[in-house]
């Protein structure tokens, strides 16, 4: 049976890891590489690494850093931030990324999603969608790390992304981001109902129960968290135990068969 994934999100700005609240007020968390090594040793299910400054400079993705970060990562690594064309995707995959997350560029050029999917497969394209709740109801998508309103309603947009070949949706509530007050369950449920591809709940995780709720109440296929793992004593391993206790299937760590003594 397919397991529910618990995914630490690593936000990376210039030289180090950061974490903000509501996509703002960035706090430095520490260097990137040791964090990836620790998560790899602890056998997390998957890692998401986002360069949150990339679009601001309009630079090429930092392939050298990605290559360094991927060196010790033997679990799936999604890399995002500033991706605008197919050529960059190929370079990131060579550098050690397994999937790429696209966001800002897709609003002006949704064809980018189709292009990546047809060259590298749908499983390679993580469509990252950042949204804010509308007063009138529903949610609006924002680009440029949460700063630019796009006018797109989330339900219509995720359906388009799925049609164009996105392999999963990384769905982040900007208001909940960094608050540790829980995921926006209505949002997760609305998107999980709108598409048939997996939905990763993101934004707001503060404790294990929030993750359980995102899966059992809202239908998330995976749960992402940053602040909760950076700033509290809670860990992905303990999160797994909590999910398992709630009856959710989670991945068990590999235990080798005892080899015959020589």
């Amino acid at each position, binding site marked *: *049976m*397919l*397991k*529910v*994934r618990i995914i630490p999100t690593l936000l990376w700005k210039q030289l180090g890891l950061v974490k903000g609240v509501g996509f703002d007020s960035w706090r430095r968390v520490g260097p990137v590489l040791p964090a990836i090594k620790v998560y*790899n040793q602890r*056998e997390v*299910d*998957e890692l998401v690494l986002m360069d949150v400054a990339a679009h601001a400079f309009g630079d090429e993705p930092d392939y050298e850093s990605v*290559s360094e970060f*991927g*060196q010790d990562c*033997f*679990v*799936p*690594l999604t890399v995002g931030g500033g991706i605008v064309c197919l050529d960059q995707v*190929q370079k990131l*995959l*060579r*550098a*050690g*990324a*397994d*999937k790429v997350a696209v966001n800002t560029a897709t609003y002006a050029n949704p064809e980018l999603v189709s292009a990546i999917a*047809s*060259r*590298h*497969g*749908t*499983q*390679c394209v993580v469509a990252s969608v950042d949204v804010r709740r509308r007063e009138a109801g529903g949610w609006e998508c924002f680009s440029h790390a949460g700063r630019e309103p796009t006018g797109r309603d989330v339900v219509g947009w995720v359906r388009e992304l799925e049609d164009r070949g996105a*392999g*999963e949706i990384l769905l982040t509530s900007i208001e909940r981001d960094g608050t540790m007050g829980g995921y926006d369950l209505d949002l997760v449920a609305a998107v999980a109902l709108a598409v*048939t*591809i*997996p939905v990763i709940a993101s934004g707001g995780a503060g404790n294990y129960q929030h993750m359980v709720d995102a899966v059992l109440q809202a239908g998330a*296929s*995976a749960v992402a968290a940053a602040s909760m793992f950076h700033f509290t004593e809670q860990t992905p391993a303990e999160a797994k135990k909590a999910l398992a206790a709630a009856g959710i299937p989670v*991945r*068990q760590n*590999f*235990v*080798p*068969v005892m*080899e015959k003594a020589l």
Partner: protein
Amino acid sequence: MKVGVVDYGVGNLGSVARALEELRARPVLIDHVSDIAMADSLILPGVGGFKECKALLDAAGWTEALREAALVRDTPLLGICLGMQLLADFGMEGASDAAGTPGLGLIPGQVQSLISLGCAARIPHMGWNSVSWYPPSTLLSGIPSGTDFYFVHSYAFVAEDPGNIIAVTDHGIPVTAVIGKGRIWGTQFHPEKSSRAGLRVLRNFIEGASC
């Protein structure tokens, strides 16, 4: 031990090579068919569409070179994910007619969409899933049946000969997880991204697994 990683323009080659280095093997990215003979064993990675990738293999002469390596020289070959699916006779993904796109024809079978096989669960089949087998295979030596591996795919290998099915997983329907024939292997999951269990599969392959 030189492990040739076939570089035909797609795939997470960096991850595959890095996993081999971790095992102290010597990965060599092979981007020209003339270099194929220098490898002690070959890994065919792959992400993307069956039709597009097969076209890339055909265009650069990989199809014949890989068949010759596996069938004539008996070079061990491991296909990963789409690389496994390409071992089949035919693939339906992106095919313009009902017969499908011809594959490498190294293990008899077809590649069909999970939907057409009756899968009602979320697709792509993405994430960690437990893999079961009986009887044990040398490729899976040291790993208990039921161990989780990392999958990402929407199509599956339907083997003609059940004897070539080494291991299966379950995504609402049974899905072929490992196929094998002699020294030709395929894993639907990504061993390079399946942590220590996956590294063990790669080690078993390099150390000469056969069935």
